[in-house]
């Protein structure tokens, strides 16, 4: 019998339901691994040993009592620290929210707990999900399990590092411009960003509300599909959540997609360096051998996606983060004497440099005299991008690109903010168009670090994206590699 931590979430659940392992020993296994490795990785901001063990005990009793348990029974799961779990911290890795405890559950939390998963802890992230490396966390550093001198990517870097190091089999992240897919690529695991509106944002701390989506991080596409079955549900508390029935993604991914046409926007990818290009070409070759037809598509407008994104996302962030004023929650500056000082000093002390930069940038693009020139212009280009994708999907079923032009970079290597923004060039357009997309491991560079293949589907084509990734993964098997350091 292979070690429990080597198994997928579904395999762990099945062993638990068969009675070959107890929920308590599953939790203990992962708690021990967290204790052993996380001091070097720094994935978790908080671990919940008591909560997790007490939930596990209850599950063991319920199973013994012959009760039918949920789809996620006995699976330990970690949450990015911007998703509310009632009574637990939600710091968003910000000094501003160091002491904040969520007074209510996010919708995804309720859905996941109703299916008997065990929440094992909260993970590190870029402050308020603003970043591509998790280096913007004000609370701690997270290292990439494949190379501890490198970042895990971001902003859901803690969740990705935790799953890659098998400190938990499953995790949730949030993706505003690539924040699930980029760390999944850097850490050699699967990360899925659903169609905008498929997963409720209620209880997710808002960053760019027209772009944010919660998504799963896992070691297999089947695990990601299972978690999507649970969280992909209409929610009346999120007015942007679309009112359609839940989908049986797990069944759907086992129906092999036949006669797929996959579009590759070569013009948009022209600056891709030789090594990632060669690995990407290999992935396309694998897809070809699986029966897919590869065609060239025109998405050159995506070259403008970073500019559009940093206008719209910062505009939304400057509005969303105005609520952190030191009045109702969060840290209030002790040197403030007047109400105005409470706002100014609390924000000064509570927010890190990237958050301040984005709030000011968002304020700039929304101020009088600039709004039409920047914000409205960006909204118009966003319309063009959506149209461009719509046209592309009349020519192919899915689009393929690399997730990132590089493998994980060293901690501290990128100091220029604009340079960091450019990291997300291949992922950002997907959020602007509201599309579903997955990062699935596509191999390793010579330096031993993983790279991800990105498959992108039309709006509400989540099942097809997962099915195609599942097909590719079964053939390529790069998802099974585990970093030596945590074996």
């Amino acid at each position: 019998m292979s070690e429990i931590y080597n198994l997928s979430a579904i395999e762990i659940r099945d062993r638990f339901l068969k009675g070959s392992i107890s929920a308590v020993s599953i939790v203990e296994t992962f708690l021990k691994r967290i204790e052993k490795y996380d001091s070097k990785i720094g994935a978790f901001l908080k671990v919940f040993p008591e909560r997790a063990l007490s939930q596990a005990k209850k599950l063991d009793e319920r199973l013994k009592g012959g009760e039918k348990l949920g789809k996620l029974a006995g699976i330990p799961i970690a949450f990015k620290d911007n998703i509310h779990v009632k009574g637990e911290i939600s710091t968003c890795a910000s000094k501003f929210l160091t002491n904040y405890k969520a007074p209510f559950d996010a919708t995804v939390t309720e859905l996941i707990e109703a299916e008997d998963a065990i929440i094992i802890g909260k993970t590190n992230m870029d402050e308020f999900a603003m970043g591509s490396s998790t280096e913007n966390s004000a609370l701690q550093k997270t290292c990439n399990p494949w190379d501890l001198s490198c970042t895990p990517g971001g902003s859901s870097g803690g969740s990705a590092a935790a799953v890659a190091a098998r400190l938990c089999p499953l995790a949730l992240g949030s993706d505003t411009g690539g924040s699930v897919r980029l760390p999944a690529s850097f850490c050699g695991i699967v990360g899925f960003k659903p169609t905008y509106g498929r997963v409720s944002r209620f209880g997710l701390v808002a960053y760019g509300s027209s772009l944010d989506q919660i998504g799963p991080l896992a070691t297999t596409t089947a695990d990601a599909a299972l978690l999507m079955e649970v969280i992909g549900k209409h929610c009346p508390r999120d007015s942007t959540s679309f009112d359609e029935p839940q989908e049986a993604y797990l069944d759907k991914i086992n129906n092999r997609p036949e006669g797929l046409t996959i579009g590759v926007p070569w013009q948009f990818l022209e600056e891709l360096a030789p090594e990632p290009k060669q690995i990407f070409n290999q992935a396309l070759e694998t897809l070809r051998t699986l029966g897919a037809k590869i065609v060239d598509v025109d998405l050159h407008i995506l070259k403008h996606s970073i500019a559009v994104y940093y206008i719209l996302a910062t505009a939304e962030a400057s509005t969303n983060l105005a609520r952190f004023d030191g009045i109702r929650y969060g840290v209030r500056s002790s040197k403030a004497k007047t109400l105005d000082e409470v706002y100014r000093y609390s924000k000064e002390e509570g927010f890190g440099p990237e958050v301040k930069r984005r709030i000011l940038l968002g304020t700039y693009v929304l101020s009088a005299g600039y709004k039409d020139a920047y914000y409205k212009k960006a909204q118009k280009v966003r319309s063009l991008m959506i149209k461009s994708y719509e046209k592309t999907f009349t020519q192919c079923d899915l689009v393929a690109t690399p997730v990132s032009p590089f493998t994980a970079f060293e901690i501290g290597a990128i100091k220029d903010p604009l340079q960091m923004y450019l990291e997300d060039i291949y992922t950002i357009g997907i959020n602007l168009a509201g599309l579903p997309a997955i990062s699935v491991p596509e191999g390793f560079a010579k330096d031993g670090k993983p790279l991800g293949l990105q498959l992108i589907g039309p709006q509400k084509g989540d099942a097809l994206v997962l099915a195609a990734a599942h097909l590719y993964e079964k053939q390529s098997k790069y998802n099974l590699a585990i970093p030596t350091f945590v074996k």
Partner: protein
Amino acid sequence: MEQPGLKPLMGTMANLTKQTIQNLIKLSCIECSEEEQERLLIDLGKIISYFEMLDAIDTENVAPCNHVLASVVNVEREDKTGKTLSRDSFLSNAPSQIGGLIRVPPVIKNS
């Protein structure tokens, strides 16, 4: 809000000034040190210059995107009270409170 020194910059290099940064700080209610302001001037200048690539795109007759899903309609619900937070749980995160209310510094001056 009309701000002195803030004029549309599309089509030109983003010549941000210290005054612009100070206006933004004021509008955003964030205190920033001199040193931070210097840094912001450089960083924001670069980023805003980068935005100018959008100038080259013809958006005449293009409607701005207000929602990515074309199918979305206005969402309404019945006007019924649902589950809300209790006063205690709401106040549990307040940095300063008194008598079941949030305490803030005085906003009305004694005459």
